C-alpha cells in the first residue's frame, strides 16, 4: 500500500491536547476518598477492552498447550518473552498510571508447532515486601502512595515492568531507573538484581539496551539527582567493558536511545525533572516540566571513548521509541522514531485509563531524522495521520543501514472500540511502501517483534510475532505473520484461555 493510500485510509486522528509549558502538574497522590478503583470497575463493566488494565486473577498463569489456528512452523523454536505492568493495585489501592504496577513476565514457548504459556511476576524487593506487608510500601512512577517515605534507593521501588532481553546467556527483566533483574529463562524464577560491576551496581539501566551485530550490549541510564547520564558497554561475553558518566543540565526522563557503528545517540526531550516538585509531594512523573524552549538536545558519544561527546539540536518533541539508527560515510546519522509533539499522552491517556477514562492526547508520527555531519538536521514525517508506536527492525540490521521498519498503528480512530493500536505494519524506507494488517475491531495490538527465519540472511526474511488482546472474546492471542506479507494476516495464532494485562516490550529467544 502506497503512502498516499495509507493516509487516505486513515480517518481523522486523535485530538491534539494543548499542553502549555509548566502546566503538566497533576494531583496524583492516592489518598483517602480515593475513587480510582471504583471508577475503573464501573468503566470496566461498560468497556471490555479495559481488561487490559486489570490485575490478573492469579500471580501465576500457566497453560501448557494453547489452542492454535494455522500452522506454527517447525523451524520456529524458542521462547517469546514479554514484560509489562500487571499488578495494578496494592491492597486495594489502585495505581494512577499504567507504568506503575509490578512487572509480570509472559513466556510463550514455541516448539514442534505447539505453544505454551507461563506468566509470573518478577520477584523484586518491592513486590516481595508489599506481598508480605499487604500494603503499599513504594511510590509508583505516576502515583504517590499515602504514608510512604522517600525511596531508600531506586531499587527499593523498582517494579521491573518495562522489557525483557536476553544477552550473553542471561535473561534480564528491565525497568529504566534501577537494576536489571536476572530471570531463570525456563521457570521465570527471579534470580536477583544483576550488576555488571560494583561501580555500576544499583545504577539506573534502560529498558531499551541495544545489542549490535557483534553481540555487544550498549545501555544508558538517567541519574536525575546527579544531572548525568550513565553509559554502559557490555561485551558479548556479558562482562562490563566500560561505564561512564556524561553530565547533562536540565535532564529528565529519557526512555530510549540508539547506537550507530561509531556513536551512541541520545536525544533528550525537553521534559525536565525538578527535584523540588518531588520533595513537594508530586509523583516522579509530575515532578517533570515540559520546557519546549530548550528544544531537543541530541547527545552523540564516541562508542570507543565515552569522554568524547558532541551535541546537536532538534525541535522540541517527545519520543518514547526509536527503531534503528545508522551512520553514512560522511558521518551523517539517520534514524527513525515515533514522535509526539509533546509528552501529553503520558500525562493524560496513559494516566486516566487507570480509572477507565479515555483522555485525548497528541498522536505519534513515525518520523525519519537526519543529523547531518555539518550539524544541520532534517526531520521528515512517514505517517502523519496514523498513530505509530513500538518500532522494531530485523535485528540483523541493528546499527547499520536498514530498509524495513515494523510498528503498530492506530488506524481510523473515529470508529475504534478502544484508543490503542489496531494494526501491525511494515514500512519500506526506500520505496515508501506500506504493508499492513488490521486486526479485528475488538483487538488491541501490542508490540510485534521480528524473528529471523533460521538459515536466512536477507533483511526482512522472517516473521513478526506479537500479542493482541481480543476484548470481545476476553482473551489474549499470540500472532505469527510472514514479515514480507503482513497484509495476508496471521499465518498462525495461539489463543490463551484468559486475557493478559497489556504489556510493553519483549524479545524472542531462539531455542
Amino acid at each position, binding site marked *: 500500500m502506497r503512502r498516499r493510500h495509507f493516509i487516505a485510509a486513515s480517518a481523522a486522528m486523535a485530538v491534539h491536547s494543548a499542553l502549555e509549558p509548566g502546566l503538566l502538574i497533576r494531583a496524583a497522590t492516592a489518598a483517602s476518598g480515593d475513587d480510582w478503583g471504583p471508577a475503573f470497575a464501573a468503566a470496566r463493566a461498560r468497556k471490555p477492552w479495559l481488561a487490559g488494565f486489570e490485575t490478573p486473577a492469579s500471580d501465576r498463569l500457566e497453560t501448557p498447550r494453547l489452542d492454535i489456528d494455522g500452522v506454527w512452523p517447525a523451524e520456529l523454536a524458542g521462547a517469546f518473552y514479554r514484560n509489562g505492568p500487571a499488578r495494578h493495585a496494592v491492597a486495594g489501592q489502585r495505581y494512577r498510571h499504567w507504568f506503575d504496577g509490578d512487572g509480570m513476565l509472559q513466556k510463550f514457548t514455541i516448539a514442534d508447532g505447539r505453544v505454551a504459556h507461563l506468566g509470573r511476576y518478577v520477584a523484586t*524487593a518491592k513486590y516481595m515486601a508489599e506481598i508480605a506487608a499487604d500494603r503499599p510500601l513504594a511510590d509508583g512512577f505516576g502515583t504517590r502512595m499515602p504514608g510512604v*517515605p*522517600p*525511596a*531508600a*534507593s*531506586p531499587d*527499593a521501588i523498582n517494579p521491573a515492568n518495562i522489557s525483557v532481553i536476553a544477552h550473553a546467556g542471561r535473561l534480564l527483566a528491565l525497568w529504566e531507573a534501577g537494576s536489571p533483574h536476572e530471570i531463570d529463562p525456563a521457570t521465570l524464577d527471579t534470580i536477583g538484581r544483576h550488576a555488571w560491576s*560494583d*561501580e*555500576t*551496581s*544499583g*545504577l539506573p539501566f534502560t529498558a531499551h539496551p541495544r545489542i549490535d551485530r557483534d553481540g555487544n550490549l550498549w545501555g544508558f541510564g538517567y*541519574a536525575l*539527582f*546527579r544531572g*548525568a547520564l*550513565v553509559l554502559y558497554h557490555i561485551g558479548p561475553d556479558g562482562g562490563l567493558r566500560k*561505564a561512564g*558518566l556524561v553530565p547533562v543540565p536540565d535532564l529528565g526522563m529519557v526512555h530510549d536511545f540508539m547506537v550507530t557503528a561509531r556513536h551512541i545517540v541520545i536525544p533528550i526531550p525537553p521534559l525536565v525533572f525538578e*527535584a523540588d516538585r*518531588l*520533595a513537594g509531594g508530586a509523583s516522579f512523573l509530575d515532578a517533570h516540566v515540559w520546557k519546549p524552549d530548550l528544544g531537543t538536545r541530541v547527545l552523540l558519544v564516541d562508542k570507543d571513548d565515552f569522554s568524547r561527546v558532541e551535541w546537536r539540536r532538534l525541535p522540541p518533541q517527545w519520543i518514547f521509541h526509536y527503531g534503528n539508527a545508522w551512520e553514512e560515510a560522511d558521518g551523517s546519522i539517520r534514524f527513525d522514531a515515533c514522535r509526539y509533539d509533546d509528552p501529553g499522552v503520558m500525562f493524560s491517556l496513559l494516566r486516566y485509563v487507570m480509572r477507565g477514562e479515555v483522555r485525548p492526547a497528541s498522536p505519534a508520527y513515525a518520523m525519519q531524522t537526519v543529523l547531518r555531519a555539518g550539524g544541520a538536521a532534517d526531520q521528515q514525517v512517514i505517517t502523519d495521520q496514523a498513530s505509530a508506536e513500538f518500532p522494531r527492525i530485523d535485528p540483523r540490521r541493528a546499527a547499520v543501514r536498514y530498509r524495513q521498519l515494523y510498528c503498530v498503528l492506530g488506524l481510523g480512530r473515529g470508529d475504534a472500540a478502544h484508543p490503542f493500536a489496531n494494526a501491525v505494519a511494515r514500512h519500506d524506507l526506500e520505496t515508501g511502501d506500506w504493508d499492513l494488517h488490521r486486526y479485528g475491531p475488538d483487538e488491541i495490538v501490542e508490540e510485534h517483534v521480528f524473528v529471523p527465519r533460521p538459515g536466512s540472511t536477507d533483511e526482512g526474511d522472517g516473521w513478526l510475532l506479537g500479542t493482541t488482546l481480543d476484548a470481545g472474546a476476553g482473551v489474549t492471542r499470540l500472532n505469527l505473520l510472514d514479515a514480507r506479507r503482513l497484509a495476508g494476516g496471521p499465518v498462525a495464532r495461539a489463543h490463551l484461555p484468559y486475557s493478559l494485562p497489556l504489556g510493553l516490550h519483549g524479545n524472542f529467544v531462539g531455542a
Partner: protein
Amino acid sequence: MYRYLVFLTALGISIAAPAAAGDLEIRIGGISNGDGRVMVAVFDAAERFMGEETQTAALMLPARKGMVRAVIGDLPAGIYAISVYHDANGNQELDTNMLGMPREGYGFSNDARGIAGPPSFQAAAFEIGADPAVVDLRLSY
C-alpha cells in the same frame, strides 16, 4: 564527648538491659545477612550530623541476619540522631557505586529518609531525657 565502643560477644549479640536515665537502646532490624559488621554512629547536633569523626558515640556490632541490639549508657539529656550501615565486607566503609549510592544496607533513627541523600538531622532526631530511650530502625538495601 566522643566514645568508641566495640561489642564483640561470643554470640555475636550485645545484650544489656536499659534501666537508667541516659541509657539508649538501639534495635536495628532488616539486616540481610550475618556478614561483617553493623556500624552505628550517634550524633548530638545538626552541625555534626554525618560528619567525619563527629559522632558522640560509635558502635561496631557483629552483623546477624535479622536484628541486632545494643545499649549505650550515660548519654546526657538532649536531642540525638543515629545513622547505621551494614559493613558486610568489613572494610569499615559504606561502599557506594560510581554515583555515590550506597551498595550496603543503611538506615537512620525514625527510619528517616532523605531524597537521594541522607535525611536532615531534624528528621532523624529523638530525645533522651529522664527515661531510658529505645530507638528501633530498619536497614534498607
